[in-house]
């Protein structure tokens, strides 16, 4: 048993290292990937400042308990990165292997598919972590973000649980791309849908009631609200304990669903013979 766990952990790490090595062969693309999130978030911030005439908004304070628009939006925006990680980086990792022609060689090895999926998740998380750190450092320096330092550790705990739920989503997308040639449409549609109903750059209260209800089924909603609660004191309609509990339930549901879809599609492609098809 110990030997097997060791084997799987090494395989997960090897997958992560392999992805880094390949990624770093495209240096210009890597640098672009690091700068992109900064470029995307700046218009949100500048637009907000222009609209409210500064970085503090009375309306935002009434709705959320915090008026610091810049910190509010920046913290929310970080979660777009996590979502993109699941929908694009992790979601398209198998499709990428199909394109390279290596998927069959990998799947012929004596490791379960979920080990491979966790390897992709490890790389995606590290990659995203690096991008977010860079983003936070630059914005902190430029806009002087102000957060409750004591809230950082519990926030990391929330993000950790939310990430597990997003891995479930990533696994589902990764498997769907094996059978749908235009799998990017699924990612695109889900990305748009989740981004609209997740309170990234606005409070949950401004959404119509039915969208607020739909947002409650997303781990990203609890992630954003609870992290902002810890770091800038955003008011939530529920307690921290409730948020953790709901996030944990969603985490189990999304991971189980992701694994079921992954296993089902893996079996389907092995029956249909389309595993290696690009």
């Amino acid at each position, binding site marked *: 048993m110990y*030997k097997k766990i*060791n*084997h799987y952990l*090494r*395989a997960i*790490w*090897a*997958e992560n*290292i*392999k992805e880094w*090595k*390949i990624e770093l*062969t495209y240096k210009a693309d890597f640098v672009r990937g690091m700068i992109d999130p900064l470029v995307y978030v700046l218009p949100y911030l500048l637009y907000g400042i222009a609209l409210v005439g500064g970085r503090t908004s009375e309306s935002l304070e009434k709705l959320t308990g915090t008026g610091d628009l810049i910190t509010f939006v920046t913290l929310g925006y970080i979660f777009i990165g996590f979502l993109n990680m699941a929908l694009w980086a992790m979601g398209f990792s198998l499709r990428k292997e199909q394109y*390279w*022609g*290596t998927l*069959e*060689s*990998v*799947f*012929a*090895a*004596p*490791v*379960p598919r979920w080990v491979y999926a966790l390897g992709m998740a490890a790389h995606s998380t590290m990659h995203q972590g690096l991008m977010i750190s860079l983003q936070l450092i630059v914005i902190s320096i430029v806009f002087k973000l102000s957060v409750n330092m004591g809230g950082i550790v519990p926030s990391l705990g929330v993000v950790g649980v939310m990430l597990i739920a997003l891995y479930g989503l990533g696994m589902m997308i990764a498997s769907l791309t*094996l*059978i*749908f*040639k235009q799998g990017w449409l699924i990612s695109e549609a889900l990305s748009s849908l989740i981004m609209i109903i997740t309170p990234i750059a606005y409070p949950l209260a401004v959404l119509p009631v039915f969208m607020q209800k739909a947002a409650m089924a997303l781990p990203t909603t609890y992630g954003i609200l609870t992290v902002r609660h810890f770091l800038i004191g955003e008011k939530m309609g529920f307690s921290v304990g409730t948020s953790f509990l709901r996030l944990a339930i969603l985490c189990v549901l999304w991971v189980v669903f992701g694994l079921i879809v992954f296993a089902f599609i893996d*079996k389907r492609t*092995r*029956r*249909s*013979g*389309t*595993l*290696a*098809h690009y």
Partner: protein
Amino acid sequence: MNIVLDNVVKKFKRGKGLRKHYITACDHVSFTIEQGELFGLLGPNGAGKTTLVRCIATLLIPDEGKITIFGKDIIYQSMEARQQIGLLTSGERTLYWKLTGKDNLKFFAALYGLAGKERDKRIDYLMELLDLKDVESERVEKYSSGMKQKISLARALLHDPKILLLDEPTLGLDPQFSRFIRGFIKDELVGKGGKTVLLTTHYMDEADELCERIAFINKGKIVNIKSPAEYKDEIPHTEVLELRCQGNVNEEKLRTALSSIKSVEKVSLINKENDLALKVIASRVESILSDVIELVRGEAKILAIDVKEPTLEDVFIYLTGTSLKEDTREEQPDALE
């Protein structure tokens, strides 16, 4: 017995809606491969060889029948089965081109449970054995086809498997690399290593040179399983007439006309852009020579005529009516949705 296939059937869906139908890539295939045996699957492109290899390697699930590796069912005990198998698939794109040869091996070594000094020692040994030491730190994209095939072979051997599935291992390689790979399979893998090898090929000389037993496969069915010598003994004639011609011929008409000549047993005809390769198997070629020339001359310009001893390919033609050079491909499943 190392590998047992029992009535394996694999079908692929083709078309959609009213046009939906199924192609049988493997049709009730049964055979066993003993320990230390070099077993060949010989058949033209599209005969079902790769489908069978993929089924054994657990990459495809058969629709019917059962496959076991050392008694382990490939569906229900796939992890145990995979641990015993080293797979070399055809084609160059089975490695990470942006990684070095050594990094490729390190990655796959981790998937097969190797680590630390044991891994490094094994990689060094294989690099030396396959004469890749000088290029181990170069990216695979810079390798020649032969070197890529060698590194793929090293990958298949990383975990020192008892069984090797080699799918068209010399396809597209130049004669020098082909010779190296063949020698390696025969001397190192089977001779010294005592490995059980399943080799698929459509090169009859490769099967003839390497295999102890050969299964002829055509249109998904196993036609016969024998040693190369037994096959050659079985053919009830001694001569094959080969003609190379040029011209736009009516293939069906010519085949029918040639087949109607007395004592002609089989006719194989491959026409590629008006370049015609014709094989006529008969008990006495001399007696039919003038008739054949007469018939062909009316249809095409004869460039060369030769009379040969029967080879394995002629036996294949005799048994199936199909040449190994023909492309009978219809086993591929539909593209993605």
